[in-house]
Structures are given as structure tokens and as C-alpha cells.
């Protein structure tokens, strides 16, 4: 078993193998793209020759049907509506998360008493109460936003509270003894120290909001993407279904990348 054909192995291979292999070994990204291409290729092959075209479409057919998908009445609007639900949910989850996180994180007593409650609520399997959200907020966007918020706010709370807890008490005492008012302390001491954990929380919160909104959309929907996924499923239109789902996955990746970039960018200053 080649336990560690890592550095030494790569180097050895690089000196003894041909130029193509050496070139590839220096560029894992190229191999990664080749792996993805291979996967898509085998999907194309399987869908074309092995599987039932009524239930699965080859990627080429999905690409071709993207135009038809976007021309389907209501689909662009549904995508917009889902994005809107995610945006509102994310803003609300951030507001609630930061407020509660600050309150719970700043006071020692508040932290000791309320943090276990927050962790308990965060640990509950929220999916079990999805039908309840729909009964309370209706089948429109409100229930999706609410479910997104309830998934997104807890990670933000926990990250913000953890971040504020880590602030050196000397800094707080120093600021207070030099006569800083509470708003000044909040703005000049707490906020700058909160930034890295705040963005970590935002990243986790985004994951939660996406999950919550999409779960609620798939559960019941009259105008959002959930409506169209069930429509395409019932009408056996796999190409459109895969196209729509892929677009949403792409949106999720883009949103996640944005918050991740923000996290590394703003987390850099102290890391």
C-alpha cells in the first residue's frame, strides 16, 4: 500500500514520467475538470442508451431545453420569487441573529442562562414543524420566508455570541474607563471584534436560509419554484426539471461563494 505517495511520490513520478503526466501532476485543477467532464459524459451516455428517457435526460438535452424552460410562463417569475424569499429571509435572520447574539453574548449572566436555550432550539429538528409553518403563515411566500428565517437565525446567533464572548475584557474596561458611552463601545470595540465571527455566522446563516426556503418551497407552493418542480415531475419533463434544479443549485453556489468571500475578506485582519 502506497501509504504516502504524496510529495515524494509526486516528485518521483514527475521525474520518471512523460511530460503530459508531469504537466497534469502540477495542475490538479485540470484533472478536476477532467473528472467533472468524465462524470457528465457518463451521465450523457447512460441517459442516452441505458435509462428511460421519460425519467432522466442527458445533459445535452437539459442544455437545449433551458431556453424552453425560461420561456415557460411563470418560471422566471418563480425564480425571482424564490430569490426574493431568500433575500428577505436572509436579512431578517441576520437582524434577529445579530440582535439576540449580541444580547446573549455580551452579558455573562445572559450567556450562561440563554445560550443553552438557543442551542437546544437550534438542535430541534425543525423539519417536523414545517406543516405548522404553512398552517400559520399560509401557502404563499410568508411561510417560506419564516421557515428560512427559523433555519438561518440560530447559526448567526451562536456565531455572533461566540465572537463577542472572545473580546478581551481589558479592551472593554479600557474603553469604559476612558469614558466611552455604550454606543461608542458598541461601534468602536464590539463591532470591529465581531466582524470575523459575524461573517462566519452569515455564511452558516445563508446555508440555513437556503435550506429552509427550499424545503418550504418543495413542500407546498403556488407560484414559486416548488410549483414548477412538482409540475415538471407530474408531466414527466425531466429535461426542464433538471434544468430548473440546476439553475437553483447554481444560484445557491453563487450566494454561498459571495458570503464565503466576504468571510475570508473581512476575517483576514485578525485571523
Amino acid at each position, binding site marked *: 500500500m502506497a501509504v504516502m505517495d504524496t510529495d515524494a511520490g509526486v516528485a518521483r513520478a514527475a521525474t520518471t514520467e512523460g511530460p503530459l503526466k508531469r504537466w497534469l501532476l502540477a495542475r490538479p485543477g485540470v484533472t478536476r475538470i477532467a473528472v467533472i467532464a468524465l462524470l457528465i459524459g457518463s451521465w450523457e451516455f447512460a441517459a442516452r442508451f441505458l435509462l428511460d428517457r421519460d425519467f432522466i435526460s442527458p445533459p445535452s438535452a437539459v442544455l437545449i431545453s433551458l431556453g424552453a424552460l425560461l420561456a415557460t410562463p411563470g418560471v422566471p417569475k418563480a425564480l425571482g420569487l424564490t430569490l426574493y424569499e431568500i433575500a428577505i429571509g436572509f436579512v431578517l435572520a441576520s437582524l434577529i441573529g445579530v440582535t439576540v447574539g449580541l444580547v446573549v453574548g455580551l452579558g455573562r449572566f445572559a450567556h450562561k442562562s440563554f445560550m443553552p436555550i438557543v442551542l437546544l432550539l437550534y438542535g430541534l429538528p425543525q*423539519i417536523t414543524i414545517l406543516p405548522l409553518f404553512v398552517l400559520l403563515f399560509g401557502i404563499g411566500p410568508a411561510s417560506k420566508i419564516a421557515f428560512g428565517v427559523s433555519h438561518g437565525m440560530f447559526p448567526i446567533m451562536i456565531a455572533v455570541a461566540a465572537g463577542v464572548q472572545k473580546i478581551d475584557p481589558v479592551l472593554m474596561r479600557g474603553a469604559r474607563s476612558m469614558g466611552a458611552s455604550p454606543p461608542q463601545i458598541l461601534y468602536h470595540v464590539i463591532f470591529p471584534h465581531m466582524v470575523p465571527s459575524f461573517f462566519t455566522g452569515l455564511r452558516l446563516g445563508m446555508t440555513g436560509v437556503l435550506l429552509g426556503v427550499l424545503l418550504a418551497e418543495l413542500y407546498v407552493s403556488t407560484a414559486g419554484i416548488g410549483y414548477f418542480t412538482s409540475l415538471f415531475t407530474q408531466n414527466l419533463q*425531466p429535461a426542464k426539471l433538471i434544468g430548473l434544479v440546476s439553475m437553483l443549485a447554481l444560484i445557491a453556489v453563487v450566494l454561498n461563494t459571495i458570503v464565503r468571500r466576504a468571510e475570508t475578506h473581512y476575517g483576514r485582519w485578525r485571523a
Partner: protein
Amino acid sequence: MNGDLREHFNREPLAIRLASHGVQVAFIFGVFILWFLATNVWRVSSILLPNPFDVWRQLIEVIRTGEFIRDLRITLGEFAAAFAIATVLGVAIGYAISRSRYLIKVFEPLFAAIYAIPIILFLPLYVMVWGLGPPSKIALGATIGFFPIVLNTVVGFGNVDRTLIAAARSMGASNLQMFRHVLLPGALPVVLAGLRMGFTVALLSVIGSETIASLAGLGHRIVNLAENMEMARMFAYIVFVIAIVALLNTAISTIEAYARWQ
């Protein structure tokens, strides 16, 4: 000594500790009192919020008659299959990739990118291919559980201290000895954490996909009761499912702690 001192100074005074526990107990009591007042005094519609006593009665009845057994068996069966597939594939593929630093560089970003996608999105596709029954839940749970397991296996086995490996090899350890005494102990904590994460997400996605589209199972039962407006019974089932999930999570955490200690 130093640690003891710090411990001593960091410890909260007894009064504060008691008070914070008091707040927690009061919070839970407060929720129940509000629930009681809302249903009995302020007359909130029982379609929105059933009476806590009704919920309790229903819960007792559900447990006494054993009507939950069929749904529980289906959900747990789906979950067990999903977690088993995710574990076998995740650990095997993760271990294979972790043997080469080059493969780690190729595959880790790929898995991490897919991990960032809410895979529940693909549920309609899974239902289309595998139908409304258990196979689609097993497949989805296995997919969602696979990624934390494979990522942690790659990281766990890939980051074993190189000095230890070089030392073991120079002392003539066989491959099996190397695995048993160097790689496994080094990687185990991270792999176990991945298995625990995979366990939780697979369980939740099985229940979630039952909620969204299914023929049977605990998630299906809750939706069914919601659609029939049998709110007290639905709440009873919610409490039941939460208890089951909590029980399973406690069990896996205990097993993890035990394996770590071993």
C-alpha cells in the same frame, strides 16, 4: 497549578450558576404556561394551537396503541439504509482519495463545492427516478450524508502527522501495523465527527423528504394529520419525532465519545 488557579477564578459564584439554571427552568415553564393560557384563557383557535392536555392525551394514545410502529419502522429502515450506504461509500472513497496528496487536491474542492449546495433541491428528481416510496428517501439520505463523511475522511486520513508516519515506516512497520497504530488513531476523531454529521443530516433529510413527497413514514404521518386538521395528534407526533431524533443523536454522540476514548 496554573490551570487550577484559572479554573478557580473563572468559576462563577454559586448564586449566579443557580440563577442561570433558574432562568432556563423558568423559560421552559413560561413556554408551557403561555401555551396553556393561549389555549384555555385567550381562546386561540385549536386549529392553530391545540390544548396541551389534548396533545398529551394523544401522545399517550399514540404510544399505547402502538400505531406509530409502522411509520417508525419505515423511517428508521430508510434512515439505516441511507446511513449505511453513505458510511460505506464515504469512508471507502475518502480513504482512497486521502492516500495521495494529488487526489486530495483534485477531489476536495469538488466535494466541498457540492456540499455547499442544498441537495434537498434534487428531491423531485430522485422522486421521478425512484418513485414516491422508500428508495428515493434512501437515495437522498445517502447522498446528503455522503458529503460530510467523505470530506472528514479525506481530511482525517490526509492530515495524519507526517513525522509519525515516517517514524513508523523507518522502524519497519508493516502496512497493516501502519494502518492500525498510526493512521487509524490519528484520523479517527475527525472521521467520527464526519460520521456524526452524516448521521444527523441523513436522518433529517429522510424525515424531510417524507414530509415533502412520500407514501408512509413519520414525516408523512405529520403532513397527513396536518392536512386532516387533527392538530392535537399532529403535535403529539411532532413531540414523538423530536424525542426519537434526540434519542438517536444522543446515542450517536455517546458512541462517538466511547470510540474516541477507546
